[in-house]
């Protein structure tokens, strides 16, 4: 099932798991993705191609959460104002809280160039680019937000807080202020308060995802720069860079505030102590990489025939299980994201894709598979970070501790072996072990 046999490196006997090689690789400090130069090139190239649109996503998500808020007809929510293009990323630039990327804190130059000319490579008014769909596809970002919002209950304290009286009161103050001069909306709010509150929760989740990606964009930019300088020797180096990043930034506050006529309203204050790791990163990985929701495309799901799990814990439609056939959707497989990344591929990946399959004609699929590989690597980083945070070092001399680490790794990989709803067949972990999977 796997490309190379990896012998166990711990004092424990070999694992009997169906993905024993992957278990042994994780125990040796590796990734779920085999350590090959081709894999390293693909994942780093994709991180760079992802980081540029992500630089737009996080800015626009914060704009939507902080300024658009409950606008009933948000037709222009993807028209990012200059203020948010100039918004300083807290993790890049000279005045960064913690500098991940040595580049600038404002919007990336490649993003600005694309926004002005689009794929058409012509400077026409922004509205025409938008209507022609020649733009960054924010629909993907919002789909990720909806996945996080819909699944909820994936750990962290934000989930119960959004149902608390304190949250209701904060939201109530903001909603009343937002619709102060709009008696119709205020009347509707009086009639259907829960509907408005739910919209406010969605806005909170929009802020959460924006704050999450604000960090990932400079991390990916820096990884691309390090790779270009020859800094990563293999896939584990790239994974460990992510693990270090996760720890460095684990305590970054997660909050939601709304600007209403110049006044900031705190809906989820920073003082609640919510953190990037618990309230954003773990829920994001669970909701987006593993679960999401059944998607329209190459397969129809009949919920009445039990083809869709009754238990949300069993949802398995995330990127780690995705058939990369492009169906044009924002959901998984996220063709709209692939389209965004297509505009910012490094030249070495463009040249690479030309050599395989149908060359330029199916670049979108090939980069989708590379993206899947890169997300298996990010998931590996999260798994290793979880192991380091909750369990023991990989070189721990205590066999009891090593066994706990193994249970953790095997428990994680069991998610790809579950025959329920054919999750085992959908999981792509076996396929990414093979370099010929494109």
């Amino acid at each position, binding site marked *: 099932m796997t490309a190379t046999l990896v012998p166990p490196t711990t004092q424990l006997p070999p694992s009997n798991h169906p993905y024993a090689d992957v278990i042994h690789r994780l125990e040796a400090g590796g990734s779920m993705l085999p350590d090959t130069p081709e894999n390293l090139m693909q994942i780093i190239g994709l991180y760079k191609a992802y980081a540029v649109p992500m630089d737009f996503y996080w800015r626009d998500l914060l704009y939507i959460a902080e300024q658009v808020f409950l606008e009933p007809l948000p037709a222009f929510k993807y028209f990012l104002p200059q203020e948010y293009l100039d918004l300083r990323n807290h993790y890049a630039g000279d005045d960064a809280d913690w500098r991940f990327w040595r580049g600038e804190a404002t919007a990336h130059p490649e993003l600005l160039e694309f926004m002005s000319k689009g794929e058409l490579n012509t400077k026409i008014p922004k509205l025409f680019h938008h209507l022609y769909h020649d733009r960054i596809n924010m629909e993907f970002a919002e789909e990720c937000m909806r996945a996080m919002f819909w699944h909820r209950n994936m750990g962290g304290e934000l989930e119960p807080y959004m149902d608390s009286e304190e949250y209701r009161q904060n939201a109530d103050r903001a909603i009343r202020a937002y619709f102060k001069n709009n008696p119709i909306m205020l009347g509707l709010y009086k009639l259907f308060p829960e509907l408005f509150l739910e919209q406010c929760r969605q806005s909170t989740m929009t802020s959460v995802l924006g704050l999450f990606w604000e960090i990932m964009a400079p991390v990916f930019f820096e990884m691309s720069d390090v790779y270009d300088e020859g800094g990563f020797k293999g896939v584990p180096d790239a994974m460990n860079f992510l693990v270090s990043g996760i720890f460095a930034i684990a305590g970054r506050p997660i909050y939601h505030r709304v600007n209403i006529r110049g006044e900031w309203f705190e809906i989820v204050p920073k003082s609640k102590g919510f953190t990037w790791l618990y309230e954003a990163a773990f829920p994001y990985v669970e909701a987006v990489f593993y679960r999401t929701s059944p998607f329209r495309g190459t397969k129809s799901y009949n919920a009445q025939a039990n083809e869709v799990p009754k238990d949300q814990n069993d949802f398995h439609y995330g990127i780690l299980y995705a058939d990369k056939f492009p169906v044009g959707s924002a959901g998984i497989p996220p063709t709209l994201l692939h389209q965004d990344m297509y505009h910012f591929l490094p030249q070495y990946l463009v040249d690479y894709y030309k050599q395989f399959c149908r060359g330029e004609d199916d670049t979108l699929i090939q980069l989708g598979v590379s993206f899947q590989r890169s997300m298996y690597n990010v998931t590996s980083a999260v798994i290793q970070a979880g192991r380091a945070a*909750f369990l023991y070092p990989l070189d721990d001399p205590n066999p009891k501790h090593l066994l706990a680490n193994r249970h953790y790794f095997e428990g994680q990989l069991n998610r790809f072996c579950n025959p329920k709803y054919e999750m085992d067949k959908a999981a792509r972990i076996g396929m990414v072990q093979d370099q010929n999977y494109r």
Partner: protein
Amino acid sequence: MKWIRLRELAWFKIKTIVNYANYAQTQEITMTTIVDIAVNNEGFSTLVTAVSAASLVEALQSPGPFTVFAPNDAAFAKLPPGTITTLVQNIPQLARILTYHVVAGKYKKEDLIGVKSLISLEGSQIDLDISEEGFEANNATVIAADIEADNGVIHVIDTVMLMRPHWFYPIMESGKVGV
């Protein structure tokens, strides 16, 4: 005569109250709190700085009682670069991590034998494993147990504990049971 007796009685009572107040004051002055122990012992400078930055000193000097799983300097040094910097920049988040190391009540090691977990002041559970091999809280090993303070007890740990999310437990269970 009666008046004298009453006066004596009143004087006696006043003296008693004053004596008691003096006694209480003396006790307060000489009370050795959890914070005092951390401050006056080597190896807790990072913890003391963090507790002070998070404005938790007063709380940990209150009568409590508390059980504190206190990471030593070596435990903090094991955290990757940036972790502490980010937390110190964000005090509520720092306070959350620190309160995860504190439990209401005074629990010495012998009180915890057979106890699977405690609920921290942060609200999440701390898993305990006490056996002949040792005393562990989550993934931290207790390297010095039962350091008594007047407002609680300290167990020194070698690793900073991080809250285990609810999904961690089914993952571990699945790993034990197998595919």
